């Protein structure tokens, strides 16, 4: 049994490394435009509603336990999609800042640094929240708060827009219109 676990762990390590190398060589185009990446794609109000403890309490009190569990599961799956979108956008923002590091002047390096920090934090939080959301999909009765995610997402998007405003108009941005 122990041999199997260790050999599988070795295989997992090699697979992760190989996948990272493949992914790293195919993400070149993902930073062509900063405008679309800094546009908020997550409906914050809808997400807040999905993870609102008061809303959940209301549903819990007014629905049968079975119906509540079904609806709550659906709501959590919808929230998963929002969080995945936010995490994806945070990744692209980090890549965008990394790719434009050499051409940053004036206030941009400072804003970019803040943006990267906020995006990394959002991404780390998103991964944790995703785990928690899947836990709640499996056990709809568990109470976990997700109030930090929307606030952090808004902060990242705000910084992204600011960085975009300060950025010199590049060829890619002009072309994107």
């Amino acid at each position, binding site marked *: 049994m122990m*041999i199997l676990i260790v050999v599988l762990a070795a295989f997992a390590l090699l697979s992760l490394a190989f996948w*990272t190398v493949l992914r790293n060589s195919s993400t070149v185009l993902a930073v*062509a435009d900063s405008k679309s990446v800094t546009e908020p794609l997550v409906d914050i109000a809808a997400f807040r509603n999905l993870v609102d403890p008061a809303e959940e309490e209301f549903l819990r009190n007014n629905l049968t336990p079975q119906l509540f569990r079904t609806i709550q599961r659906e709501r959590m799956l919808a929230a998963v999609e929002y969080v995945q979108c936010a995490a994806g956008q945070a990744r692209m923002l980090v890549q965008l800042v990394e790719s434009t590091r050499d051409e940053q002047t004036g206030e941009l390096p400072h804003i970019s640094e803040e943006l*990267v920090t906020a995006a990394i934090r959002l*991404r780390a939080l998103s991964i944790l929240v995703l785990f928690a959301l899947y836990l709640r999909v499996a056990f709809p009765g568990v109470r976990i708060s997700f109030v930090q995610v929307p606030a952090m997402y808004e902060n990242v998007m705000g910084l992204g827009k600011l960085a975009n405003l300060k950025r010199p108009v590049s060829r890619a941005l002009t072309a994107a219109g």
Partner: protein
Amino acid sequence: MLRTVIYVLWLAAFVVECVIARQLLIRRLFKEYPLFLAYVIEHIVSFICLFFCFHFGSRVAYRHLYMGWEAVDVVLKLGIIAELFAHVFASYKAIHHLGTTIVRIASVILVLCATVVALLSNIADPNNFLSKFFAMERSVEIVQGGLLFLLFALCYVLALEWKQPSLGIAFGLCIITSVNLAMFTLRAEFGSSSNQIFSLVSNVGYDLGAVTWLLTLYPQRDKGHSVAGTMPELDVSSWNRTLLELLRK
């Protein structure tokens, strides 16, 4: 026949290591990766010493020398992993201390894991020196493999950007570590009956890792800039549309 193949692989690794050392010196990468250069030089020197001892020295002398080099090798490999952590986190001022902290905490946890694995495993022949040695090597590989796994996983989770040659060095180290981890585990469990086969696979793994390092150290064209520079303007907008659609899915 098998012995000849192992010999060829052993010699090939030496040649590749010499070229890697040359590349590190020519590209002045030893300033950024001093421990990696030390590791490569250690391997070159150890090859000469071990090869000499294997043919002209006694079996006991060879064994002691091999053990000594292995101890240096372990320290340097852990140093390279710490160096990779530092390089990956260096670009991100807000979290660059995180790398060192994570390495320390993870090392302690992984040492505990390696101890548990050692305690739970059966050694095929407890009186055999080689069986004990392979069990010890397996524990070391668990720590190294765990740290590398953590590095790759953190880069994915935090969306940290890999830069060359860090990615290539880490990938090469992953190949060597994962092959060694599997081989040392099987050797420790099954004893010395299939030593030559395991030795052959370990050598192939090391040579693959060394070739990966060599390829990484040759300057490559900056793909990012070249693609962006040649991309027609219409493709940019279509790319943006696709990107938005993907994000909305």
